[in-house]
């Protein structure tokens, strides 16, 4: 167990070092959400005047959901570094060394979690600059970060698993794009649940991105409904665990195939 933790730390550290030398990568992943936040936030300013929105400011409504959406989309790329490692000799070298196999997965997930926190805080900052104000305070922000991290872990694990099974950059990116867009639009990230067509609202209740968006917005209100938050966070946690387990299974399948 100590080896597992030590190896997770070493591998996470390696990835963070790489990121610190190529910080542009992190900014690159923020371009798209910034476009959403700045353009959508401006374009649909008056949408928040509709009944059904809990707030008068659309940016205020949009920011927490976008944070979750960005966490999901960025995490979808997680597996690409596995494929790079396979294309180079890194994966082979790892597998012939006493590296804890589980640590290879948890290292990747921990790294994804940390970058998600950084990203989310930057987006919060931009939201505040655009005039969003949240009554939920530090605890609320903490819950938003927790949701984003759980969602990132879920999708990073899925991305890692797919990477280990398909072993092709193009296929992996295709699959993750194919998932990301429908999940984004079949959620309450941009539109208040009360204003959605019924079928979309129904589908959204099974959408992990929606769980994160609902819990995040709730946590930022003045008097949050903790039942709503706990149920969504609980579901996210369970899903993250299942996906993590799936990724380790995929690792075994990969090892058997070499």
């Amino acid at each position, binding site marked *: 167990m100590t*080896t597992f933790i*030590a*190896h997770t730390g*070493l591998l996470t550290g*390696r990835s963070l*070092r*790489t990121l610190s*030398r*190529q910080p542009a990568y992190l900014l690159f992943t923020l371009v798209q959400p910034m476009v959403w936040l700045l353009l959508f936030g401006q374009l649909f300013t008056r949408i928040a005047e509709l009944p059904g929105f809990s707030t008068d400011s659309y940016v205020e409504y949009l920011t927490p959901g976008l944070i979750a959406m960005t966490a999901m989309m960025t995490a979808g790329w997680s597996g690409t570094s596995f494929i790079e490692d396979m*294309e*180079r*000799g*890194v994966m*082979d*070298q790892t*597998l*012939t*060394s*006493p*590296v804890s196999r589980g640590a290879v997965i948890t290292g990747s997930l921990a790294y994804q979690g940390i970058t998600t926190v950084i990203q989310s805080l930057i987006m919060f900052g931009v939201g505040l600059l655009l005039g969003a104000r949240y009554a939920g305070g530090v605890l609320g922000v903490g819950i938003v970060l927790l949701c984003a991290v759980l969602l990132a872990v879920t999708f990073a694990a899925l991305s890692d698993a797919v990477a280990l099974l398909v072993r092709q950059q193009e296929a992996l990116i295709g699959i993750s794009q194919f998932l990301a867009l429908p999940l984004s639009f079949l959620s309450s990230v941009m539109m208040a649940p009360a204003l959605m067509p019924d079928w979309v609202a129904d589908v959204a209740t099974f959408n992990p991105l929606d769980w994160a968006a609902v819990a995040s917005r709730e946590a930022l209100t003045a008097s949050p409904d903790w039942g709503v938050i706990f149920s969504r966070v609980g579901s996210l946690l369970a899903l993250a665990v299942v996906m993590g387990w799936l990724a380790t299974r995929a690792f075994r399948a990969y*090892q*058997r195939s*070499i």
Partner: protein
Amino acid sequence: MGSDLAIEAVELTKTYGKGDKAVRALSGVSFSVRSGVIFGLLGPNGAGKSTTVKILTTLSTPDSGHATVAGIDIRRHPDQVRRVIGYVSQKPAFDPIATGRENLVLRGRIYGMSAREARRRADELLERFRLTEAATRLTSTWSGGMQRKLDVAMGLIHRPRVLFLDEPTTGLDPEARAEMWAEISALTRTERLTVLLTTHYLEEADRLASHLVIVDRGKVVASGSPDELKRHIGGDSVQVELADEDWNGHAQRTLQAVPGVTAVTADGSRLRARVTNGAAALPGVLTALEAAGIEPVSVSVARPSLDDVYLHHAGRAFREADQAGAGRTGVAA
């Protein structure tokens, strides 16, 4: 574990894929390697060298057969094997966004060294491979030869007992290759380890390996020291260099008809005829060429090379097999 065998492989088999698409990579490979030597696994592309190495390094499991590395059973205790081996894959394994020292230290820590211990060992290896000056630069800025040396150094960080080098000089320029050869031959002396090296360069096996096996189509076709192998097949070869490649077929048929010639192979404009005694066969070869109207650029007699050994055992010229195999290395390398 008191045996002095560093590696023992017995009847290893491995098939990739199923049904019609199945590719048999190994069909019963056996050999043993004594401790403290450089052992060569020589064969053309796709012969099964890399598959053998993948099995011995616990990356892959054999369909049947068994093997021990440093006395440890690879199937029963793969985790123990991993602690005593170093593996330098054909493909680069260093992190290009890290410095040379960072690469080595991280590897050392993964093998359970303390930060201090790992740094000390890293500096020792950087010194040994003359990489100290570049140690704090990102490895993406290093030359190909330096990067390759770093990969080897990373394989040595934990002082393994057996080091696997998979095609260590493929893709290196001649100068870097010569340097790498010098480093490898020094390894068994200074690090006191056993090196198993795969190569499809005959010259490399000849230069470095004190013992070798020749692998062809998933089987060991010959084993021994390079000298033994050459002596064993006996005889010499007469090499004929033609002015024009077009005469190749004609010349080959002509040479085949010369008494005393047992086999002829062609490689571009160069023909090699196997004979029992080079000096005795030479006049006959020259007369036959002249009678056939072929003017060679040069004719020379050579002692057998590993190429002849390969030809003798595999029934085809090495280069020919190498090119034939290159097309399917993707599956069965």
